[in-house]
């Protein structure tokens, strides 16, 4: 719907200009990962498969094998997503469908935390993990990241449970099913779009997470791909070909998801996913 009387040429030109930096950045990443030398965006050397040697290499400069970092990243993101989905759904179900004193206070706290910037708590979280003996463990980082995802998750799932038709639940309850059974067998299957949305959010956010593993993990055997890649960036002489290959390797799942589901991601981040 053309709502504004705008000249098309001007519009196309500005759109092109606005997208150019992002396209250039992605092109740089791919080209630098594939070629020996890249000047600007022009390959100046032959194809360089040796950039990708890190994948099979047992260790690059004293780092753990890339496979270990990859496995840690996969474990970390899927654990965060799975725990966040279950825990947030349970809480959201209680807030949305059950009655208890302090319900609106609980939701108010969740909402305040949703707006509250959690990074400012990092120093205290570091201290608490040390006290709990969970510092420098993947479990500790998983728990922290999950907790930080919860306000968003509870809020999102509550929106889905609110639109649940309660006749089905009522019928199941009258037939003698327990609340727990209703939650798992009746309510959860009906909010699948919500679970998918929260899962995507949590996966993407955990996959990219840098500050938490960087701060809360020291031992390189627990590194994720984020800390693995970052360890290359701080070197005095960066081999950009190899580092770009590591970066592309790390970003590949995100790029594939982006390629397949950009419409879905737009809806998701625009807050348009509804049950």
């Amino acid at each position: 719907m053309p709502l504004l009387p705008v000249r098309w040429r001007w519009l196309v030109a500005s759109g092109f200009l606005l997208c150019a930096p992002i396209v250039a950045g992605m092109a740089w990443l791919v080209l630098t990962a594939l070629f020996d030398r890249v000047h600007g965006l022009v390959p100046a050397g032959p194809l360089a498969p040796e950039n990708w040697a890190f994948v099979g290499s047992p260790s690059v400069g004293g780092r753990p094998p890339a496979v270990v970092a990859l496995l840690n990243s996969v474990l970390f993101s899927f654990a965060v997503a799975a725990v966040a989905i279950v825990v947030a759904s349970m809480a959201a179900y209680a807030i949305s469908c059950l009655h208890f004193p302090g319900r609106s206070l609980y939701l108010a706290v969740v909402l305040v935390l949703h707006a509250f910037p959690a990074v400012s708590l990092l120093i205290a979280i570091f201290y608490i993990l040390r006290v709990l003996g969970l510092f420098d463990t993947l479990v500790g980082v998983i728990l922290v990241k999950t907790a930080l995802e919860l306000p968003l998750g509870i809020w999102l799932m509550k929106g889905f449970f609110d639109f649940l038709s309660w006749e089905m639940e009522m019928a199941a309850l009258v037939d003698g099913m327990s609340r727990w059974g209703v939650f798992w067998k009746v309510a959860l299957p009906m909010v699948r779009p919500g679970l998918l949305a929260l899962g995507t959010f949590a996966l993407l956010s955990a996959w990219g997470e840098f500050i938490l593993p960087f701060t809360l993990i020291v031992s390189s055997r627990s590194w994720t791909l984020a800390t693995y890649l970052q360890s290359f960036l701080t070197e005095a002489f960066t081999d950009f070909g190899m580092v770009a290959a590591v970066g592309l390797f790390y970003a590949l799942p995100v790029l594939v998801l982006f390629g397949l589901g950009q419409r879905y991601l737009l809806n998701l981040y625009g807050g348009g996913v509804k049950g």
Partner: protein
Amino acid sequence: MEEATRAAVAARARERAWRGLWVPLLFLLPATLLVSLFYLLPVATTLYLSFTDISTVTFRNPQWVGWENYRDLVRDPFLGRILGNTARYVSLTLAFNIGVGLLLALLTSHVPERAGNPVRALWLLPRILPPVVYVLIWQGLTRESPFGLVSNVVGVSRNWITAEPWTVIVLANGMVGASFGMLLFTSAIRSIPADLFYAAAVDGATAWQTVRRVILPLLRWPLLFATAYQTLSLLTSFEYILLLTDGGPGFYTTTVWSLHAYKLALSNYFGNVQFGMGAAMAAVLVVVGVVVSVLYLRLFNFKALVGEPKIEVN
């Protein structure tokens, strides 16, 4: 007799109420535990640690020092510079975020979906790309000639991150944040009735007049929300600065409040980290964060969000 019956009825009612409470409690237990452990407790811990002399040496046995950390903070000769940097970072990035977000929303909602969606999707990329990869790309593009694209285009060979750290920080952060406003404003523009645009066109309004007199007034709330929300998150965010410049180059050139707190407490370059001092700086952010988020809740109408559940069986 009657007394006894009434007591029995009351007891049964109490029992039922308790049983009714059990179920929600169990459902809420895991979330409450995690949120208490890593949100509520850290708020208290930050405040507590900020009143102690905790550091690497005294980690196991911190002493209460009252307001001393805060007094030191106020006396810090670099406080002015850090405050200035923070103001600069937040205001410039915010201006970029809102400005470009609005521009993108306006542009993409006035072309057909087929053209608008890819542009919007592309701008989502910086946000979903892992931050370390995103920063790696910035490093690659801003290298010296003949490698760096920026150097080649401008014609001056420089490492642009060290030459123009502030420009790079604002652009890099801004391109991540712009999609937030873009998506918010796009859906707001879409919900404007088309009649208004036809009326404006009939009255002979120019593009600029339509934006200024029709669209912007109707975007007042989304604009306010995006500004409020992003101010708070920018105030506390330091991830991209840490990765891009690590607060440099040189002495505190791009160190903002949150990064300084983080480095005081958690980076061990100086050997003995000043944990308590870092906690004091973080505590200021935490207090600001709590106050501002509660204000948001007031501002953006909480009551409407909390409807009572329809079903009352446990």
